[in-house]
Structure formats: C-alpha cells, structure tokens
C-alpha cells in the first residue's frame, strides 16, 4: 500500500469519526455537560498510548539520554494524569446524579 492511500484512509476515518462525534454528542443533555466534558477529557487521555509508543521508540533507538528520557517520562505522566484523573472525576460526578430522592 502506498503512503498516499494510507493517508487517505486515515483522513477518511478522521472524517467519519468527526461525524459520529457530532451525532452522538449533540444528544447529550445540558444537565450532563460537565460530566460529558470530563469524560471526553479522559478519552483524549488515549494520548497516553502515544506516549508509550514514543518511549518504546526512544529506548529502541538507544537515544535515551537523560533529557530525552525525562521528556518521554513526562509525556507518560501527563497522559496518565489525563486518563486516570479524567475517568475518576467523571465517575465521582455521575454517582451524584440521581433520579429520585432516596430514603424518603
């Protein structure tokens, strides 16, 4: 497969994902906009996967000088904050949304 056709494939996926995103998310009620934002925040924490790839690349290339290693670890750390914090805080918020009052 050529590079160009691979690029076009990725662009197609991007376009479809944008449409799916608009469709799915425009149905979220305003009541849930804060949890929506923190949940999507957690989902872009998938950047952690990218950080893991880059660590493997860096160490595989034997280029791991101290500065680069620190940068790569920082990328992993930030990604992990994003994933774990994002999901935890969303879970905490959603626990609070209740339909009827309990114990009444």
């Amino acid at each position, binding site marked *: 497969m050529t590079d160009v056709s691979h690029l076009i494939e990725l662009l197609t996926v991007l376009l479809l994902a944008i449409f799916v995103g608009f469709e799915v998310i425009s149905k979220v009620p305003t009541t*849930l906009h804060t949890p929506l934002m923190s949940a999507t925040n957690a*989902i*872009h924490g998938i950047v952690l996967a990218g950080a893991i790839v880059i660590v493997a690349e860096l160490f595989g290339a034997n280029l791991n000088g101290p500065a680069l290693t620190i940068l790569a670890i920082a990328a992993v750390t*930030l990604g992990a904050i994003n994933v774990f914090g994002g999901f935890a805080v969303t879970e905490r918020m959603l626990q609070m949304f209740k339909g009827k009052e309990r114990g009444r």
Partner: protein
Amino acid sequence: MSDIDVAISLANLVAIALFIYGLHELNSPATARRGNRLAMVGMAIALAAILVKSGTIGWWAILVGVAIGAAIGIVAALKVKMTAMPQMVALYNGAGGGAAALISSVEFYVARGGTVQMNDVIAVSLVLSAIIGAVSFAGSIIAFLKLQEVMTGRPVTYPGQQVVNAVIVLGILALGAWFVVTIGALPVWAYLVLMLGALMLGVLFVLPIGGADMPVVISLLNSCTGVAVAITGFEIDSVLLVICGALVGASGTILTVAMSRAMNRPLTNVLFGAFGATGGMETATASGGAQQIRTASADDVALMLAYASKVIFVPGYGMAVAQAQHSVKALADQLEKRGVKVLYAIHPVAGRMPGHMNVLLAESNVPYNQLLDMEDVNPEFATTDVALVIGANDVTNPAARNVPSSPIYGMPILDVDKASNVVVLKRSMRSGFAGIENPLYEMPNCSMLFGDAKASVDELTAAVKAV
C-alpha cells in the same frame, strides 16, 4: 501482519466501539454512569494492547510515568470540590495537550538521530500537534490559575495586545513552515523557539478572557486538545488516536458553539473582545445615582416562600462561590414539606463551565428531573409565585430582551421577571461580571435580600421552619 498485530488491531477496534457507545450512553443521566464505565473498559483494553505491542522496551520509564500520573490524577479527582470542577477539568485538559506536545518533541529528537523515517505527513502532523498541544497546555494552565483565583479573573489587557499576538502567530507559522519544508530538519534552537512561541501564545490567548467567559474557553481548549491528539494519531500512525481525538474535538466544538450561542456573542468576540474589562467603569460613571430598589428581610421572604405554590430557584456562580448548594437543597426540602412545588432554572452559561450548576445541585442530592434548562423553564415563570435568584445576575437581566443599546442585548435569558415575585439574593449592589446594570432590580415585583448567599439561604430555611 503478524498474529499479534491482528490481535492488537482487534483490541483497538473493541476499544473504539466502547468509547463511542459509552459516549452514546451519556445521553441520559440514568445511563451515563454505565457509559463512563464502558469507556473506562475501552481505555483499559486499548492501553493493554499498546503495552503488549511495545513489549519490555523502556518498561521502567513507562511504569514510573504511569505510577506518578495515576497517583496524581486519582488523588486530585477524589479530593477536588465540586465547585472547583472547572479548574480541575482545565488541568486534565492541559495534561493531555502537554503530553501531545511532548510526544512530538521526543519524536523530533528521535528523527534527528535518523532511526525513524521522516516524511512529509509525519513532519506536518508532528509540528501541528506540537504547536496545538503546547497552546492548549499553556492556555489551560492560565485558565486554571484564573479559576483558582491565583491570578485575577478579570480580563488582562495591555496596549498593542493584538499586535503582539499577531507577531507571535506569524513567527510560529514561519518556523512551522520551515519545519515542513525541511521535513523536520530544523535546528534544535529553532524548534525550541517554536515551542516557546506556542506556549506564549497559549498564555496570551487566555489572559484577556474574563471569568464569566470561561465556559467558552474551557470548551475550546477541550476541543484543541482533541485536535492535537487526532493529529498525533497521524504522526505515529494510530487509528485509535485519530478517532479518539476526533470525538473529543467534535464534543468540544459542540460545547463551544452552544456556550457562545447562549451568550449571543460570536466566538471571536468572546476570544478577542476582553468583555467586561472596561464595561464596569463606564456604567459606574454613567449611572451615577443608585438604582431605586426595595430590600426585604429574611422573614418577609420566608413568608412569601412558605405560602407559595410554585418556587423556582435560579442559581448562578454566586451560589458556587458561597458553597451554598447544600443550604439551597435544605431550603427546598423545607418548602416541599409544605407542599410547595420546587424547580431549578439552569442557564447554559451559569457558572464557570458548561453544566456547572447541575453538578453542584446533583452533589446536594437535587434529583435531576427538577433541573430544567432555559427552554423548558422559561414558560414556567408566568405561573410561578416566587423566583429566587441566588448569585446569578446577567443571565436574568431583562435588558437583554428590550434594551438594544445594552452590551448583552439579544442574549437569551431566564425570564424571572415574569414570576409574580422575584427575590434576588446578592452580596451587594455591585454590578455583575459584565458591569452591566440590571433593571430587574428596579421592577415592582422584585426585592433584594443582601448578604452572603449561604447565610441568607440558611436564614430563610430557619424562618420557613418557624412559619
């Protein structure tokens, strides 16, 4: 494709399905929690797959990073107060943007070593995700500092601001173009200048935006990080990152548009208008004399509430600042005991992030079916005995409906003035964030109850009990 690669691709496919279905489940408070959990499972699958793929290379670096990040993220998530949610989300958002920028930077160095094959697609996506990620990172940090009130929430402006920003943007574009033309063979100093410029742009871009416009900024930064992540997907050839980034970008864009529509101001005005920077002073001199207002005592208001048949609470950022949400719920409980129908009117931009008030009231156990958004609640005011405005100002200002010269003219508002009685709980007669006088306070059906929102509501609860 080896068997392992096939398995990893399939795992990614499952993760993507779980993310999309999880987001779909967020369409109702009843299923939202399951949606979040599905997305968590998706994330676990995706991360497990990538760990299998990367093997043991650099395992300790990954372990150290994940351990530190997970600890910080989870502890912060469990400790944060619900009123501080906007700045928390801003920080997580900045973390994502920062990670994207760092990934690109490491990739840049690795590519200089020649072990990774650079091509034009990688060069373009690398430099774009580095720039957007850095802008999002720095912008989110400033948004955090403003919301946390480490620095002033007012717009920070200085002469020549737009010129400075334009120069930085041009510089970034020039260096970025240089990067692409040389296919990543930029001198290290030039790359560092580029990153520094992007960080400065992020700072300078959020500085002039005032506190009440934060819902727009946070949504926009959310969207920016999503875009940075999607572009990182092109850089490291990962369909997973492209899709996740696109989903978040779409979500952030929807929220950004919804927020600026709820303020009836074009996005460019929110971002570059430094709204509220000078407005306060102008009205102060223009109005001169004090408004003719009526004040009420807590006992008067309590009587009004106790014998009402329908009461609507209208919370704003003042409720969050005073941490009054639990007191508000206690008052509502008292009223409901007496058979009063209680509803809550939530303006889309009340608070400092989209949906902020809903989270606070959910925290104090208000059932979500009592939380009505603007379209649903506005017809209710005409049949309401008392509208109790708690720390909200501009979103109740009738000038938005009928004073074409008002800066907020055309902004959709909550029609509290249509209620038989309006009671405004306010700290003082100081005008709202935008510095605009509110004619609501002079209307014959409106009275003011001055004081800290929490203290006032507690007083009302005690007085209603005594009725």
